[in-house]
């Protein structure tokens, strides 16, 4: 019981990270209908930028307490946002309105570029960071097994919920959110009605990158070890989460992320660590075979 409880906590905090990345996938997919394959690598860039920020701040002696973490988060979010903007501008905008596979290949190429850019500029070796936030709260104790809720996990869950709340308000209550939803429904009509669709799409990429940067910072704080390759698997899992929840649906992305995180954690805890990815992907295949639009996705109407 206590063991399952601990896994539940771990699964939820991992799932939150996946959910944050998945939101970026699902937003971009909803608005321009393409898989942004480079999104996982944007997450990786976010993690690297927060690592750099941590080192910079600790040299300046500012890396103390919550203020330091907030600064790291802001630094990473701001610069990763610029990365998101530049990626859209360079690789996707010229292909707007082109055929479907072109942006996908461009995205795969960009993913290779980003990975190797970081490999060249930051080195191929893994970067182990000292733990910044230590300790946790003891939730319960049973037969000598202590269930611990680490402070980093509280941080992950808290920050994710806060970011998602801000994000939900942004999408549902602000003019930008309205423009985004309009573009999602019908881009041509939206532009006829005076919405600057190019700007809206750019901002969607910036927001998606910012959320990925939050996920990257949380990943760094929780796991402490990053390298240039972490983006691929995290990206695939997050995309799986987005598809599982029903692509295009924002609550679905978070739900899918939580499910993938939980499945992965429980599978590693009770069956085998090696096959945890197989478990996550098998669930994806099964869901799609029986629920082709995902858990919260809309049924697509086929027009002739």
């Amino acid at each position, binding site marked *: 019981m206590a063991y399952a409880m601990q896994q539940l906590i771990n699964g939820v905090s991992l799932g939150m990270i996946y959910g944050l990345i998945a939101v970026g996938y699902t937003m971009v*997919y909803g608005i321009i209908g393409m898989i942004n394959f480079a999104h996982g690598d944007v997450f990786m860039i976010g993690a*690297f*930028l927060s*690592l*750099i920020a941590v*080192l910079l701040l600790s040299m300046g002696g500012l890396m103390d307490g919550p203020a330091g973490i907030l600064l790291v988060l802001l630094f990473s979010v701001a*610069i990763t946002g*610029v*990365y998101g*903007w*530049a990626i859209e501008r*360079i*690789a996707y905008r*010229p*292909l707007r309105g*082109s*055929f*479907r*596979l*072109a*942006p*996908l*290949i*461009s995205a*795969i*190429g*960009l993913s*290779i*570029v*980003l*990975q*190797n850019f970081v490999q*060249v*500029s*930051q*080195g191929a070796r893994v*970067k*182990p*960071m*000292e733990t910044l936030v230590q300790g946790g709260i003891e939730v319960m104790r049973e037969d000598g097994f202590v269930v611990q809720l680490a402070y980093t996990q509280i941080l992950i869950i808290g920050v994710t919920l806060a970011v998602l709340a801000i994000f939900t308000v942004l999408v549902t209550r602000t003019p930008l959110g309205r423009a985004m939803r309009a573009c999602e429904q019908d881009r041509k009509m939206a532009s006829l009605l005076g919405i600057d669709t190019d700007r809206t799409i750019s901002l969607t990429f910036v927001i998606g990158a910012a959320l990925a940067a939050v996920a990257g910072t949380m990943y760094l704080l929780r796991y402490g070890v990053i390298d240039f390759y972490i983006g*691929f698997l995290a990206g*695939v899992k997050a*995309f*799986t989460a987005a*598809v599982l929840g029903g*692509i295009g649906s924002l609550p679905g992305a978070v739900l899918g992320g939580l499910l993938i995180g939980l499945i992965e954690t429980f599978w590693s805890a009770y069956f*085998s660590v*090696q*096959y945890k*990815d*197989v478990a996550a*992907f*098998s669930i*994806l*295949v099964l869901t*799609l*075979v029986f629920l*082709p639009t995902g858990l919260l996705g809309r049924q697509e109407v*086929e027009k*002739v």
Partner: protein
Amino acid sequence: MSAAALAPPRPAGRVQLALKDALIATAVAAILFVPMVALRTDVGTAGALALRYRWTDAAILCGLVFLGRLLLVLWTGRRGLQPTTSAGPWTRRLQQAGRFAAPAFLIVALLLPVIPGVDRYELDLGILVLTYVMLGWGLNIVVGLAGLLDLGYVAFYAVGAYSYALLAQYFGLSFWVCLPLAGILAAFWGILLGFPVLRLRGDYLAIVTLAFGEIIRVVLLNWVSLTGGPNGISGIPRPSFFGLSFSMSGGEGTFAGFFGLEPSSVHRVIFLYYLILALALLTNWVTIRLRRQPLGRAWEALREDEIACRALGINVTTTKLSAFALGAMFGGFAGAFFATRQAFISPESFTFIESAIILAIVVLGGLGSQIGVAIAALVLIGGTELFRDLQEWRMLVFGGAMVLIMVLRPRGLVGTRTPSIALGKRRAIDGNLVGEGHG
């Protein structure tokens, strides 16, 4: 009010606009590069991470961005580079030469081993390029003809390679027995994986095939008792030439001994080269023939419009499955060849990036265009080989080339397609008119 204030503002000169644009681009580049390039995180002597400064590198990069953007804007005006599918002046000339391109390529490919100056290195490179040409042609059946987006093609390559390696290791079967078996097994896997995904379309199909590719790789990696896990399988037997081995002893029953030649390791390389050339040409031939037959026409119809296909009574299930199976079969052949050529395989050779490269070859060449796939494989694989000295920059150049080619020519290097059947003269049609399928 003075007259000067009333005069309309002088339109900013072209150079001024270009300068402004380049400065903005440089500012963005500075934001991107200063933290990532100028501040390098290194594990210091104490084991803790420390920053190392490289301001010059970042400054050089920003300068390059400034110059590049300035020249680009001065050259093309503010609209920048536009994607195009229509033929420019040079492509039109290339098209006229295109009638001779395919035979010319074929002749060069056939004569490569006897061309003076071609050494072992060039032959090895030729084998590598031809392997990717074959994989590209195999995937072209699935993606280019049937319009099913498959991101896990490398799974079938892996099935073929491991089929041969395991059959040779456990049952001592020879390459020539295993080659068809590897193809058949891969085709079975294609059908097996194809069944559940038949209901899916477009990107769902893409992500599920990607997931299958990863599942197969993870299983190969972790089923240590059968596959050797991350250590892979080594000592895979080499193929023989009608029972004659390529050993260096030069005695009875070896290739060199039978033909009275000086034993040389190049013989085997030449043999492997012709083997993969034959396999690739077989793939090409089967594809071209099938395109004219009902099955191939059904694939292309499926790509253009699935609903119309259903309405016309085409069995969508068997059509999709046959495309999956045939594409997988050629992937399996290529895998068996890869295993025998390397004599060593491990799951590392079958990562997602391989699938991405093969798909990139198909799309960059032009979906459905056989010659385009061959050219793209030559450019991408041969081209990156040229940049071998750049070491870790190689893949950076590779990815950048992928983005650049797509941005400039989204329908691939070869912008036209040949219709499978035509009334009267067979004219080339624009690539834009060809559907891409929705899975």
